[in-house]
Structure formats: C-alpha cells, structure tokens
C-alpha cells in the first residue's frame, strides 16, 4: 500500500529521472553546437594566419596586432590551429556524451577546463600585454565561456535542481 507521501516521492524521482535523461543530452547537444562555432572561428583564424594577409576586422581594430604578435604561435604552430583541434575534440566528445558515453563527458569537462584557463590567459595578454583585442579571438573566448557554463550547469544538475527547489515550495 502506498502512502500519499511515498507517492509524491516517487513522482519526484520520476521527474528527476526525466530531467537527467533529457537534460544531459540537451546540454551536451548545445555544447556540441557551441563547439562548432568555436571550430569555424578557429579555422577562419588559422587560414588568416597561413595566408598572412590583413583581414577585415569589422567590430574592433586590433586584429593585426593580436594575430601578428609572438603569442599567436606556440613552438611555431599557429595558436588558432591548436584552437581548431581543441574545438573539434570538444565537438566529438560532446556528441559522444550526448549519446550516453559517460567517459566522453568527463574528458570534455577536463578539456573545457584547460581551454577556460588558456582563454583567461589569452584575454589577459590581449588586454594588458598586446593592448588590443581581436574580434575573432573574442568570439572564441565567448564559445569557451559558454562551454564552461554549460558543463557547470550539467555538473550542478541545472535545471533539475531549480525545478526541485521550485516544487519543494
């Protein structure tokens, strides 16, 4: 025999289960889309680096300064190319995680954490060392921050936790 209290608990569990099943793939799916934005931005920057010409920078004015600075390459490899590889890895892992591969989700968190720290360092360099911002680098930074936010939301089980709190009132 089910008591009214235990009925409420069961329905709460069902709601949580539904949210975790739906929330995970959706968050990873969005993360995959954000990774694609970062990937194509990084590809554009890589080609700009390879061809060496001045590209049209339509929002800010510091693209040349940033992209021709010594920080634009690491051991002779264009940083944009490293970024493209990182974003493609993120896309692959997010896609796998969306299909239920748990290890992929953990690896994705690790890579995004590294990218987040790298992005902070690059923003610092643009703001305080080079003194100019490149709009394509800012798009990449926004993509990394969005990825980090999505994975944090996943880590803290949002929006399930918010709904749980809401239903508890």
């Amino acid at each position, binding site marked *: 025999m089910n008591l009214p209290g235990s009925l409420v608990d069961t329905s709460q569990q069902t709601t949580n289960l539904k949210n975790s099943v739906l929330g995970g793939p959706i968050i990873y799916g969005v993360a995959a889309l954000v990774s694609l934005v970062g990937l194509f931005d990084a590809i554009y920057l890589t080609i700009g680096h390879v061809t060496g*010409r001045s590209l049209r920078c339509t929002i800010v004015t510091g693209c*040349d300064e940033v992209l021709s600075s010594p920080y634009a390459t690491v051991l002779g490899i264009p940083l944009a190319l490293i970024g493209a590889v990182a974003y493609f890895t993120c*896309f692959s892992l997010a896609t796998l995680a969306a299909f239920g591969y748990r290890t992929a989700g953990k690896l994705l968190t690790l890579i995004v954490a590294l990218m987040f720290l790298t992005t902070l360092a690059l923003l610092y360099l643009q703001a305080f060392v080079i003194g100019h911002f490149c709009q394509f680098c800012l798009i990449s930074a926004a993509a990394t921050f969005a990825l980090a936010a999505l994975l944090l939301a996943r880590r803290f089980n949002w929006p399930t936790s918010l709904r749980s709190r809401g239903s508890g009132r």
Partner: protein
Amino acid sequence: MKRVLPIVIILVALAVALGAAWYLKQNATRSTAPVANGPVAPVPAGKPAPTVVEPGAQPPHAIGVAGAPVTLEEFGDFECPPCGRLHPELKQIEHEYGQRVRIIFRELPLVPTHAHALAAARNAEAAGLQGKFWEMHDLLYENQKTWHAAFDVRPIFEGYATRIGLDLERFKRDLGSEMVERRIFLDGKRAHSLGVESTPTVFLNGRELSFESLALDKLRGQIDAELAKAAK
C-alpha cells in the same frame, strides 16, 4: 544505429570543417585569369564575383611606362603590416627591373581594421594632387610603425607633407576634398569588382598572385617568366 550515429555526426562535422578550411584557403590564395580595365572579369569557382571590372581612379598612381611588358597592380593599405613588409620588396623590383615593370598602387584602406588607414590614404592622395604621391607613399610605409602607434596622426602627416615640400595649406584643404575621396572610392570599387578583400593583393599582368608568391624570389621568378613570354 545509436552507436554508429555519433561517429557519423563527428565524421560529417570533420568533412565540413576540412571543406570550409579548403574553401577559405582557395579564396585567400586564388589565382584568376588576366583582367584589365573594363572587360568582363572571370568568376572564381564558388565565388559570386561581380562581372564588370571597375577601372579604378584615373589616372592610376603608377611608376614606369604604360607599355611596360609587366604590370604589377597592388591593392594596399598604408597601415597594414604585411603591406609594409611588401614595400621594400616592390622598391627592389622597381630598382632591378626599371622600365620593364610598371607598378600601380590602388587604395584599399581596411576600415575599421586599421584606425588610421583612411587618414593615411587621404594623406597620400592629397600629396598626389601636388604630384608627390610616391614620396608620401614611401614615407608612410617606411614610418608605418611610428604613426600607427600615434593617437593623433595629423601632426605627423603634416610633418611628412612639409618634409617632401608640399604646399601645406593646399595639402590641408585637399585632405577633405571631393577629388581625394573620389579617388579612394573608385579604387575601392575596382577592388570590390575584382573580389579583393584583403591587403596586400597584387595582380601581375591582371593575374592575382597568391600571398605566398609575393616573396621577393618568387616575385622575381614570375616577372622573369612574364618578360620571357613578352620577348617571344
């Protein structure tokens, strides 16, 4: 199916990414068939280029005779660092080949990529109205780093105008003149009609050169090949 689907998605994304990279690279380094003033331009594969090539500002700023067997037409931005690096190479070409090579400069200030590019273009065109375009052109490229870093470039440019012996009052008036604006606008129209989007872009006898082939040795090789062709 559920196991294969993510792999398929990843492979499709990889193919699209590589395709995009290839397309951008082709666009950046494409070579077009010869074009000149006026005729119908070839449309590079996959690029919706306008069909009529604009003539640009007339007469163009040119070094060398009109009938030279080789013409190099550069679309440049005085504030663009790669253009600054190309400048001594073109001076070297001018020195080595003399009247056999004609060099044309077209204005393509990348705004707002370069904060002072338009002011520099106006500066050179205003100097051109007093017959000293190339003197100002050289000064702007040789001192690019100096004025690029400045907040207010006007006193620096006026200093250059004085240095090359321009009538300063006329120069100041000409900076905002319709003639100056029109020349920059017409060169920009020509650039657009040829599908030029970045600087420096150089055409050798109407054929766009890839950025990699602007290295001095490669440039010499291509000029020599054109000269040999013309001599036959």
